C-alpha cells in the first residue's frame, strides 16, 4: 500500500531500515499521521508488501495497542475488492505495532481528483459507489472506518477503488483527542463525530457524502480556515447545494447528497448499501455514455444490508465477526464476514451438494468448480496480474432458475460464491509493476459446496447489476487452454466482437462440452449478433429517414443484447434525429399554415366587409368571428365585428319598432290638386257676363282639366326601422302641350315636426303624355316614426300649381 503524507505532521519517527520480523524494509514510501509506510518484502511469502509501522506513542499505551491489535485483526479478516487487504499484524522490537498490507499502485483520490484530465461525473459516482461497497462490507463486519476522506481512498492503476486505513482512525482519534489535536482534516467528520458521540457506520456515510460533494462541487462542503467554524458548519449549518454544478444530472444527485449529508442520524442513509444502491440507480438513469456504462460495469458487488443499522464499534468488535472456526451460519447472516465465511463456514447439509459438482451462484453459469474442500487461500496464493476481481464476479447470470430456500441463506451462499471467486479465481498482487499471471494449484482452489439457486427476489434483486451490463460469465477458469479460450471469448464479448467470442467459446466447448459458462457465452454472443443485425437495419432505416422502423429495429437490438452500448446510443441518436425531423416538419408546417391563414383571413375579411356593406350583419359578424378564431389579434376583424354588432343592434331595435309601426301601414297618395290663375278667378265673371235677373251665368272651372298630375313612388312600399327608403316624385303631363316647371316646394313632416323647403326640380320640362321625375330623395326610416307625410307643390311657367301629398298610414 502507499500512503500520502498528511499536511499536519505526525509525531516524528525515525526511519527504519533492515528487517522487521519477516519483512525486509526496502524503502520508505510514505509518511502519515500514524507513522511511516515502507515498501517491504515478505521474505517468507516472497512478495512485496506495504508495511505500516505505527508511531511509538501508541506503543506506550497498552490499551491502545490492544485496541489497535483487535481492530487490525478485524480488518484483516475482511476480504473485499474495495478494501485494502491486510496480510499481517505484528509488533516491532521497539514495541511499535505494524501492519503488512497489499501493495497498491496508483494514487489516492485526493491526488486523482486533481490530476487532469478531469474525471467524468459517472466516474466520480462510480468511485463513490465502490467506496460504499467496501464500507458496506466493513460495516457488516462491525467495523467503522471513522476517517473516510479522499486521502484514504486509493485508486488502483486498473481503476479499482480501495479503502485504506480501516480502523486506524478510531485509534488515532482516541489518541489525539486527549491532547486536543485533530489528526488530518476535520472536513469529512460527521456531526456525531464532532460532538464526540458514539459513531456507527452512518458516520462513514456522512463522510462519503462529503467526499461526493467535494468531487462534484470541487470544494469541501463545510470547509473553513477555522477548525471551530468547520465544526459549527458540520453540526449546524445547512449545506449550500447551489455550489453544485448546474444541470439535470446534478439535480438528480442532490436528493441523494442531502440524505447522505443529513445531520440527523435517522434522516441519513442507514446503510452504505442503501446509499450505494441509490447511486447505482442514478447511474442507471444518467450514465448513458459509454464511460457511464463502463462505470456501471466497474461497480463491485453490493452486499445486502444488515437487518438492523450497524451498531457502534464496541469494545468487543469481534462479536460481529464470524469466528474462524464456526461451523454454522451466524445469527442474522447478513452481519457475517462473507469472505471469511466462504472460506471457513461449512454449509448445512441440507443445502450442500456433492463435492465436485458445479456450484452455481445466483442463476448464472458455473462459477467455481473444484474437488477440494474449502481452504484458506491467501498464504499460498502466488502473484498474479493486477486485475480487478470484483467486476467479473459481480456479473449476473442470464437465466435464473429459482428454487426454494431461505432468502438469507441464498444471500449468504451467493456471496460465498463471490468471496470464493475472489479468493480462488484470480488473486492479483502487484509487485513493483511486474505482473505475472498466477496459476493457482488445484489444491488451493476454493471449492464451494453446492448450493441451490436463490430466488430472484432475494439474491438476484440484491446482487444483480444493472440490466445494461453484459451477462458475461461470472468468472473465468484459472487454468488450461479452456480457460485461455474463455478468457479470449470474454474479452471479445466485452468489446462486442461476438464472432470472435463465439469462436473462442466454441474452442472451450470443444475441450469441455459441458462448460455451461461457455455455452452461456455462446448463447449471449448469438444474441449479440442478432442485435448487431438489428442495429445495422436501424442505421439503414435511420439514413433513409424511416425513424419508426429505425427505432423499432434498435429497440429489438437492445432487447436482444441489453448490455451492448450501441443499443442505447443508437436509440438516442434515432430519437435525436427524429425529433430534429419533427421540429423541421413542424416549422415548415407552421410556415405553410401561416401563409394559408393569411390567405384565408384575407378572403374572409373581404366577405365580411361585403356582408356588412350589404347590411347582412349576422353574416358579417360570423365572418369576422371566423377571422378572429384564426387570428385573434386581427384588428380589422375586431373592429369590423364591433361595428357589425352595433349596427345590428341598431337595426334590430329600429326593425322592432318599425315592424310594430308598420303593421297595416303603407304609403297612400292623395289626388293632385291643380290650380290655374283662371281657376282662382272663377268666382268672378268677365265683364258683360254678369248675372241678370233672367240670366244666371253658369260658373265653372277648368282646373280639373289641367293636364298635370303629381305621383309618388316610395320604395319599398313597406318600410322598417333602419331600412333605407326612397321617395321619387314625378309630374305626369296628360295634356297636349308641354308643362314647364319653375320651382318645387316640399313639405315633409315626421311625427308632427317638419321642414318646408324648396327642392330644385330635376326636370323642368315635361312633354305631353310623358312623366318626369322631379325629385328623388333617400333616407333611413327612423325607428320612432309614428307619422310621416310629404306634400309637394309644383309651380309652372303658366302659373299653374300642382299639389299632392303622400301619407304613411
Amino acid at each position, binding site marked *: 500500500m502507499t500512503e500520502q503524507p498528511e499536511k499536519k505532521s505526525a509525531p516524528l519517527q525515525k526511519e527504519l531500515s533492515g528487517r522487521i520480523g519477516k519483512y525486509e524494509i526496502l524503502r520508505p514510501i510514505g509518511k502519515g499521521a500514524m507513522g511511516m509506510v515502507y515498501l517491504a518484502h515478505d521474505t517468507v511469502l516472497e512478495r512485496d508488501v506495504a508495511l505500516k509501522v505505527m508511531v511509538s506513542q501508541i506503543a506506550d499505551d497498552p490499551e491502545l495497542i490492544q485496541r489497535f491489535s483487535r481492530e487490525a485483526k478485524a480488518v484483516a479478516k475482511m476480504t473485499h475488492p474495495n478494501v485494502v487487504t491486510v496480510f499481517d499484524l505484528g509488533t516491532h522490537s521497539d514495541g511499535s505495532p505494524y501492519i503488512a498490507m497489499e501493495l497498491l499502485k496508483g494514487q489516492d483520490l485526493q491526488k486523482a481528483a486533481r490530476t487532469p484530465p478531469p474525471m467524468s461525473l459517472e466516474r466520480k459516482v462510480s468511485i463513490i459507489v465502490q467506496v460504499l461497497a467496501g464500507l458496506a462490507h466493513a460495516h457488516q463486519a462491525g467495523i467503522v472506518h471513522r476517517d473516510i476522506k479522499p486521502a484514504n481512498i486509493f485508486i488502483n492503476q486498473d481503476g479499482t477503488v480501495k479503502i485504506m486505513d480501516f480502523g486506524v482512525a478510531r485509534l488515532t482519534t482516541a489518541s489525539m483527542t486527549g491532547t486536543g489535536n485533530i489528526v488530518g482534516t476535520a472536513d469529512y467528520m460527521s456531526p456525531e463525530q464532532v460532538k464526540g458521540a458514539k459513531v456507527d457506520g452512518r458516520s462513514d456515510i456522512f463522510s462519503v457524502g462529503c467526499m461526493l460533494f467535494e468531487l462534484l462541487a470541487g470544494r469541501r462542503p463545510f470547509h473553513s480556515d477555522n477548525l471551530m467554524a468547520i465544526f459549527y458548519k458540520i453540526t449546524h449549518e445547512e449545506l449550500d447545494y447551489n455550489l453544485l454544478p448546474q444541470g439535470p444530472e446534478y439535480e438528480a444527485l442532490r436528493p441523494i447528497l442531502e440524505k447522505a449529508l443529513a445531520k440527523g442520524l435517522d434522516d441519513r442513509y442507514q446503510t452504505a448499501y442503501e446509499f450505494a444502491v441509490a447511486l447505482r440507480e442514478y447511474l442507471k438513469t444518467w450514465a448513458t455514455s459509454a464511460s457511464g456504462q463502463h462505470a456501471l460495469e466497474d461497480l463491485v458487488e453490493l452486499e445486502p444490508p444488515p437487518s438492523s443499522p450497524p451498531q457502534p464499534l464496541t469494545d468487543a468488535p469481534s462479536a460481529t465477526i464470524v469466528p474462524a472456526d464456526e461451523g454454522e451460519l451466524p445469527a442474522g447472516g447478513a452481519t457475517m464476514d462473507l469472505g471469511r465465511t466462504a472460506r471457513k463456514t461449512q454449509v448445512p447439509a441440507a443445502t450442500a451438494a456433492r463435492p465436485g459438482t458445479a456450484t452455481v451462484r445466483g442463476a448464472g453459469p458455473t462459477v467455481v468448480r473444484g474437488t477440494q474442500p474449502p481452504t484458506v487461500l491467501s498464504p499460498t496464493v502466488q502473484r498474479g496480474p493486477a486485475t480487478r476481481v470484483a467486476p467479473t464476479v459481480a456479473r449476473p447470470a442470464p437465466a435464473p432458475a429459482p428454487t426454494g430456500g431461505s432468502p438469507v441463506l441464498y444471500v449468504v451462499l451467493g456471496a460465498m460464491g463471490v468471496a470464493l471467486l475472489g479468493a480462488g479465481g484470480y488473486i492479483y498482487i502487484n509487485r513493483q509493476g511486474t505482473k505475472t499471471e498466477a496459476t493457482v494449484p488445484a489444491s488451493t482452489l476454493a471449492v464451494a459446496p453446492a448450493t441451490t439457486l436463490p430466488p430472484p427476489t432475494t439474491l438476484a434483486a440484491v446482487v444483480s447489476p444493472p440490466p445494461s451490463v453484459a451477462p458475461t460469465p461470472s468468472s473465468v477458469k484459472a487454468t488450461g487452454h479452456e480457460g485461455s479460450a474463455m478468457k479470449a471469448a470474454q474479452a471479445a464479448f466485452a468489446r462486442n466482437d461476438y464472432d470472435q467470442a463465439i469462436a473462442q467459446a466454441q474452442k472451450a466447448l470443444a475441450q469441455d462440452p459441458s462448460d455451461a459458462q461457455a455455452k452461456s457465452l455462446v448463447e449471449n454472443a448469438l444474441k449479440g449478433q442478432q442485435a448487431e443485425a438489428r442495429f445495422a437495419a436501424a442505421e439503414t432505416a435511420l439514413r433513409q429517414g424511416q425513424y419508426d422502423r429505425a427505432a423499432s429495429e434498435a429497440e429489438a437490438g437492445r432487447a436482444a443484447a441489453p448490455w451492448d452500448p450501441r443499443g442505447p446510443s443508437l436509440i438516442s441518436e434515432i430519437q435525436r434525429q427524429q425529433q430534429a425531423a419533427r421540429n423541421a416538419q413542424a416549422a415548415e408546417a407552421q410556415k405553410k399554415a401561416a401563409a394559408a391563414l393569411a390567405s384565408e383571413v384575407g378572403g374572409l375579411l*373581404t366577405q365580411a*366587409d361585403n356582408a*356588412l*356593406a350589404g*347590411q347582412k350583419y349576422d353574416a358579417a359578424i360570423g365572418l369576422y368571428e371566423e377571422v378572429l378564431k384564426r387570428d385573434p389579434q386581427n384588428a*380589422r376583424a375586431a*373592429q*369590423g365585428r364591433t*361595428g*357589425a354588432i*352595433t*349596427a345590428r343592434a*341598431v337595426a334590430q331595435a329600429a326593425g322592432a319598432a318599425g315592424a310594430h309601426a308598420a303593421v297595416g301601414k303603407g304609403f297612400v297618395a292623395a289626388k293632385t290638386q291643380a290650380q290655374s290663375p283662371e281657376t282662382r278667378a272663377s268666382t268672378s265673371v268677365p265683364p258683360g257676363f254678369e248675372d241678370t235677373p233672367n240670366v244666371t251665368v253658369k260658373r265653372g272651372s277648368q282646373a280639373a282639366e289641367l293636364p298635370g298630375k303629381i305621383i309618388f313612388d316610395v320604395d319599398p312600399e313597406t318600410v322598417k326601422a333602419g331600412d*333605407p327608403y326612397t*321617395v321619387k*316624385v314625378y309630374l305626369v303631363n296628360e295634356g297636349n302641350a308641354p308643362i314647364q316647371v319653375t*320651382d318645387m*316646394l*316640399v*313639405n*315633409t*313632416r*315626421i311625427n308632427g*315636426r*317638419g*321642414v*318646408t*323647403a*324648396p*327642392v*330644385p326640380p*330635376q326636370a323642368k320640362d315635361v312633354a305631353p303624355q310623358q312623366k318626369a321625375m322631379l*325629385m*328623388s*330623395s*333617400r*333616407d*333611413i326610416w*327612423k325607428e320612432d316614426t309614428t307619422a310621416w307625410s*310629404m306634400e*309637394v*307643390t309644383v*309651380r309652372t311657367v303658366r302659373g299653374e300649381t300642382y299639389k299632392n301629398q303622400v301619407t304613411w298610414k
Partner: protein
Amino acid sequence: MRRAAPLAAAISLAGVLASAEPPVVDHQPSPCTVPDKPISLCANVTDDGQVAKVRLYFRATGDKFYSFVDMVFGGLNFCGTLPGPRGGKVKSIDYYIQAVDDQFESTRTSTFQMAVQTEGTCEFPPLLKDTSRMGAITIYATHKDQGKKVPEGFQGAGVSFVPVVRK
C-alpha cells in the same frame, strides 16, 4: 334657400308666426371615410317653422379653421358633400352640422370625427351616399386667414372655394 324664400314665406306664414324653437338636427355620424373620394353626409332637419339654412362645417383634424358646405334639402333630408381628403395627409376629419330657421334660431350638433381609412376597411356604418347630388362642391371659408385655396388636406379638383372677403 335664398332663392325659394319668397315661396316659402308665402306658403307658411302661419308657421313663421308660430316658430319659436330652433331646428332639430337628426344625424347619424359617419365614423370613417376613404381617401380622395367625396363623401355626402345627410341629416334630417325639422323645425316648427321654416328651416332657413343648414351647413356642414368641417376641417382636417389638427387644422385651425373650419370650412363649410351648404346642405341641400332633397325632399327627405339635407345633404352636403365634402371634398375627398387627401390620402396620407389627413387621418381624420372633424365635422359638425348647424341649422338655422327663419327666426334665426340655431342648432349645432356635436363635433364628430370621421377617420380616413383605406377602402375596404371603412364600411361601417353604411353611408348614405346620395350620389345624384354629388356634383360640384362649393366650400366656404369661415376665416379670412384661410386664404383663397381649398384647405390643403382636401382634393381641390372640381371644388370651388369661397374665401372670406376682407373688409
